């Protein structure tokens, strides 16, 4: 198992005074999954539900508040600092804003080779340059781009550089945090296909985060639906695509535009309504109850746990 989460919760400290201890704000609750080599876990959910937070915790860029993350069976929180730094080579991340993901003062060459200086300390300048050119070409950019600065790249080019940087130390897992949301629609497909090719060639495991169900549908082997920091449904991709079980999952699917105008009109009629609760004051019951058209009184008071239904796990008994 290349990546595993066990009852993982993640919290942000809220800044307070000089002396008083900040009270943490938990934005991801009780997430568990197992990811195998070469597979893709898709994570969907609307903005602010904690997808990025979860992604960062999986790379131990944020500490786990409860539960644990396992990297090939080992908990990064218990590694010695040096071991942890070395272990990071195998787990990389690409970001939603590809320009912000590059240091504006570094050339593409420098951004690409910097991780090599850490992970392969003995490497020569010429070798690391060759590796950078090779990996850049793998993402579809010529070696000419090595001399460029981020402000000289388009969004799509910058994202390819980001992918190249993630690949250069030969990782096993890449967290893709909305890697195409900021790109033009025409380029989105290219980048998604690039990721799929790389995954096939290199046997990468991907965690693919998106608020767009259509993209996740194309990529994932398993789908995890998050709402307000909690997993409401977790299912194999085919089963999920045939029939999403949780009312929130169904609402998300409604949010994917339909090519057929008639279907599109009826889809719009069913857009999500009601108030989205705040992370600062999460409801005691089901996180979706305030917007669910099937909600019953008990939904607002007791939170349904994830329970098996067919091949899926669903946090809704109805």
């Amino acid at each position, binding site marked *: 198992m290349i990546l595993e989460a066990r009852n993982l919760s993640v919290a942000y*400290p809220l800044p307070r005074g*000089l002396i008083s201890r900040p009270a943490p704000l938990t934005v991801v609750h009780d997430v568990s999954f197992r990811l195998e080599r070469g597979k893709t876990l898709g994570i969907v959910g609307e903005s602010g539900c904690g997808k990025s937070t979860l992604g*960062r915790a999986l*790379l131990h*860029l944020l500490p786990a508040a409860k539960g644990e993350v396992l990297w090939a069976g080992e908990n990064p929180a218990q590694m010695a600092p040096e071991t942890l*730094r*070395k272990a*990071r*080579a195998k*787990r*990389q*991340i690409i*970001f*939603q*804003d590809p320009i*912000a*993901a*590059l*240091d*504006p*003062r570094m*050339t593409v060459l420098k*951004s690409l080779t*910097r*991780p090599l200086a*850490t*992970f392969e300390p003995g490497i020569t300048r010429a070798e690391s340059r060759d590796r950078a050119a090779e990996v850049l070409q793998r993402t579809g950019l010529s070696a000419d781009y090595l*001399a*460029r*600065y981020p*402000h*000289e790249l388009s969004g799509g080019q910058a994202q390819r550089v*980001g992918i190249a*940087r993630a690949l250069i*130390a030969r990782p096993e897992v890449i967290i893709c945090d909305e890697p195409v949301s900021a790109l033009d629609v025409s380029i989105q497909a290219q980048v998604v296909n690039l990721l799929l090719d790389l995954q096939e060639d290199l046997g990468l495991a991907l965690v693919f985060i998106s608020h767009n169900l259509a993209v996740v549908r194309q990529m994932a082997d398993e789908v995890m639906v998050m709402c307000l920091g909690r997993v409401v449904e977790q299912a194999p991709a085919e089963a999920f695509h045939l029939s999403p079980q949780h009312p929130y999952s169904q609402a998300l699917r409604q949010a994917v535009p339909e090519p057929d105008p008639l279907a599109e009109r009826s889809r719009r009629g069913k857009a999500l309504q009601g108030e989205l609760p705040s992370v600062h004051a999460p409801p005691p019951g089901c996180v979706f109850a305030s917007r669910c058209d099937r909600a019953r009184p008990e939904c607002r008071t007791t939170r349904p746990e994830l329970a098996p239904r067919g091949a899926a796990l669903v946090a809704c008994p109805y």
Partner: protein
Amino acid sequence: MARSPFRLALARFLKNRMAVACTLLLALIVALCFLGPLFFPFTGEDSDFDNISAPIDLFSAHPFGTDDFGRDLLVRVMEGGQVSLTIGFLGALAAGVIGTLYGAVAGFAGGRLDRLMMAAVEVLYGFPYVILVVLLSMLLGGGNIALFAAIVFTLWLTPATIVRAQAQSLARREFIEAARAGGMTNTAIVLQHIVPNTMVLVLVYGSLLVPEVILSESFLSFLGIGIKEPQASWGNLIEAGTAQMETDLRLLALPGGLLALVLFSLNFIADGLRDAFDPKERL
């Protein structure tokens, strides 16, 4: 050909005529102060007892005349300029470096360390400046080094605050997370990502810090706790000139005028730098 953000800004700076003219003026004044005295057979501390309080006579041995000890005014002003400019630039550099490192660490670390470090800055800010300098130069045993240390000690606070704010927003940027995922240590991230990305800000602010240091030195010399006679600085020359300004304006005008020109040009240089590096323009 790829052009770094720095090169682009430099190109913009060079298009700003006022800023370029001021840079040249400043360079000229620096060259005058450091090279000028080489052309005179005496120093600014040598008295010429045949020419006490000589008036301006551009074609004599003392073009701008002498003071009431018979010391050549122009040479004294140039030598004083060496002291003031050196203190100004080195002081700004030292305050900038200390402030940058301190602010970068605080802003990047965040949390409790940040709050403690910034509370310390607040406390130092609250100290009356003159008292702090007097205390420090007493503590360090007086002398020019003590004066320099005291000035730097009071002036690194503002760059620290500015850099800390910038570091705080940089720390949230994705490229910093990528750096951590790339196995960099916190120290490496601060030195290789945070600090270089605050350099522009520090450069702009630093060019405003130079006049501040020079003014500080002048002010302290004026109060009599700065550079001591017979060594000249613009500060103590201006002080001496002020005492006699009703009888002989020349003693005030020459050092005062040069100081004003330096302050003036540094302000325009700072303006030019800020416009050239304007963060609103995509770097």
